[in-house]
């Protein structure tokens, strides 16, 4: 395997972007990540993005997204209609071929434009599920109850995740939900999607994020402490929630095993948990213990810029490694209803 590292990360998020278009949101983020990478824009070997046309209701969002990147002279470019964590995976594979030495990865989306929770119904099975219009929150709530029922945990455990997320988010300028809240106050709020309350559900967020990857010596020459990708794996479960065991995340467990999460201490973990119970379920599947700081950024419960949220997890872990705050970390990204697909990335700094 070729050594590949995250050498820069930039990210912006707000609850509702009032004036800028998607392209205008991408521009400063891509420019910041490229500038911080120390690699000239025209030298970047591969560009890959993640976005979702349904968020804006217009076709080919990624084509106009290129206006923010600069595509002349023509560039090597690709796109995934998934969270940009999977765009990073594709870029990592491109770097493994040895054809390119660097890559720009970005994700973007304005969830505030439409009804995100309803839009996500359309990613479900078109014959049996989509005609009933279960929202992404409805589906998550079904998993939440199944999980609580099976584990004996309760809504207080969920509120503890939410409270910690909001407190961690106090230090995160990109957080759209933060506060010094306590569990009792959270539990006083009404249940909105049994057994979930609003604080258990990631806030609607507009945003964009960008990461620059570089291989081997290039990474060492542009970054004092690159965040090396030691492993990146993803696994998917069957489509129908009714055939899955919703009380655990077997795809996360297998991806974590393949990535060797348990082969060393994990200082920090950023998990793509859009709902409180998902963080508990994922931490179990990843085998994380008390020594790991889970979602120190506040995680998706603090800011959920859909199509970037997973990439931001990788960026947040990499940022802490580059800053010398952590040595080994795990980033997780998810896609599909009820954590159907999961990506696990192990990052490490080298002294």
């Amino acid at each position, binding site marked *: 395997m070729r050594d590949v590292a995250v050498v820069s990360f930039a990210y912006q998020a707000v609850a509702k*972007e*009032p*004036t*800028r*278009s*998607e*392209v*205008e949101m991408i*521009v*400063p983020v*891509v*420019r910041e990540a490229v500038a911080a990478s120390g690699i000239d*824009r025209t030298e970047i070997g591969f560009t890959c993005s993640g976005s979702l046309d*349904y968020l*804006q*209701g*217009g076709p080919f969002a990624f084509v*106009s997204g*290129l*206006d*923010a*990147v*600069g*595509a*002349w002279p023509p560039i090597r470019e690709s796109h995934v209609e998934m969270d940009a964590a999977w765009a990073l995976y594709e870029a990592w594979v491109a770097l493994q071929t040895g054809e390119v030495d660097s890559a720009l990865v970005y994700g973007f989306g*304005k969830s505030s*434009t*439409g*009804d995100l929770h*309803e*839009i996500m119904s*359309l990613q479900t099975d*078109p*014959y*049996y*599920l*989509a*005609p*009933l*219009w*279960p929202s992404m929150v*409805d*589906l998550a*709530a*079904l*998993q*939440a*109850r*199944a999980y609580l*029922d099976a584990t004996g945990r309760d809504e207080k455990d969920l509120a503890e995740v939410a409270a910690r997320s909001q407190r961690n988010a106090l230090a995160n300028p990109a957080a759209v939900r933060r506060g010094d809240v306590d569990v009792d106050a959270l539990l006083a709020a009404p249940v*909105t*999607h*049994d*057994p979930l309350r609003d604080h258990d559900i990631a806030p609607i967020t507009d945003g964009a994020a960008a990461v620059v990857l570089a291989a081997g010596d290039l990474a060492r020459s542009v970054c004092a402490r690159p965040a090396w990708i030691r492993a990146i794996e993803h696994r998917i479960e069957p*489509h*129908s*929630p*009714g*055939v899955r065991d*919703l009380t655990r995340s077997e795809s996360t467990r297998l991806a974590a095993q393949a990535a060797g999460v348990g082969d060393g201490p994990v200082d920090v973990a950023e998990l793509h948990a859009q709902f409180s119970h998902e963080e508990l379920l994922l931490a179990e599947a990843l085998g994380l213990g008390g020594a790991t700081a889970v979602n120190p950024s506040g995680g998706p419960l603090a800011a959920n810029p859909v199509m970037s949220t997973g990439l931001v997890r990788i960026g947040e872990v990499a940022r802490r490694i580059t800053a010398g705050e952590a040595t080994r970390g795990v980033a997780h990204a998810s896609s599909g209803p009820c954590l159907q697909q999961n990506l696990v990335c192990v990052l490490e700094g080298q002294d």
Partner: protein
Amino acid sequence: MAETFTAHHVLEYPGGYTRSVGPVIGRFLTALRDGRIEGVRLADGRVLVPPTEYDPVTSQDVAPEGDHWVTLGPAGRVETWTWVREPRPGKHPLDRPFAFALIRPDGADTAMLHAVDCGSPDAITVGMRVAPRWRAERRGHVTDIEAWVPLADGEEPQPAPLRVPAEDEGPVTGIVSPVRLEYDVTAGEATTRYLRGLAEGRIVGARAPSSDDVYAASRGTDPRTGEPTTVEVEVRDTGVVTTFCVVNIPGLSELAPEIPYVSAQILLDGADNTFFGLIRGIPVDEVRMGLRVRAKWADELKPDHTSIEWWEPTGEPDAPYEHYKDYL
């Protein structure tokens, strides 16, 4: 800056999406139309409902015919549920608050998602017995079960109301799925400047910061470099046809004129990108590359594309190929 334009957009395909269902899903939906829930027994003995064309664990084919098809329930058990406080009209199966639940029909090893009509979240529990409430008018669709309802101890499920099949009725081969999504789209800052210009009879562009390139109707960046364009410039409402096509297909949009008509890319004077427009005021067979044209502005100017109705010849000599060869 002044307020950014927003527009309410509706994404909807007229009449809904028509989907072929194939023989396996088709058989399940045909059984629903008959008032029956059918599943399939997989190679390892598990019974899958609703059935798919493949074993979701091993990917082995599931044959559309054979004695591995079994009739299930119709009663079942709630495995997990959530409460929908605000049903979505025209989308959700019920117009009053209800539960979404995963329900395992008796005899099945998997669960199906559906609605439970039980009045209140206090009236549903994990493990509760439920039975389908069938519609009288069934069409081979997952909503042929209107909802599931609680079943008291010892109570038998209600059979599906009798339905007289149409004479030429065959197995279900497809479904129609209406999809409607609504958006409040922000034009963005650069596009708002451009649209505001149209309402004033001007075509606003932007200059790239590191070259002299000017982009008419800029989206806020130099697309060659990705650099933000902030310097606004006005480009002229005259230009040159770079390339065009004669449209002979009627009804492409409500705004399209009578066929045949000409769509063209126009290199505006003072701009370094091309601009889409319709060409009129000249027989279609005389439209050519290099033709000089001018915008025909609408009598009533608005901040949208209707402000320029079409483009018509200026009568000036054609531009030489050299002038526009880099914009093709």
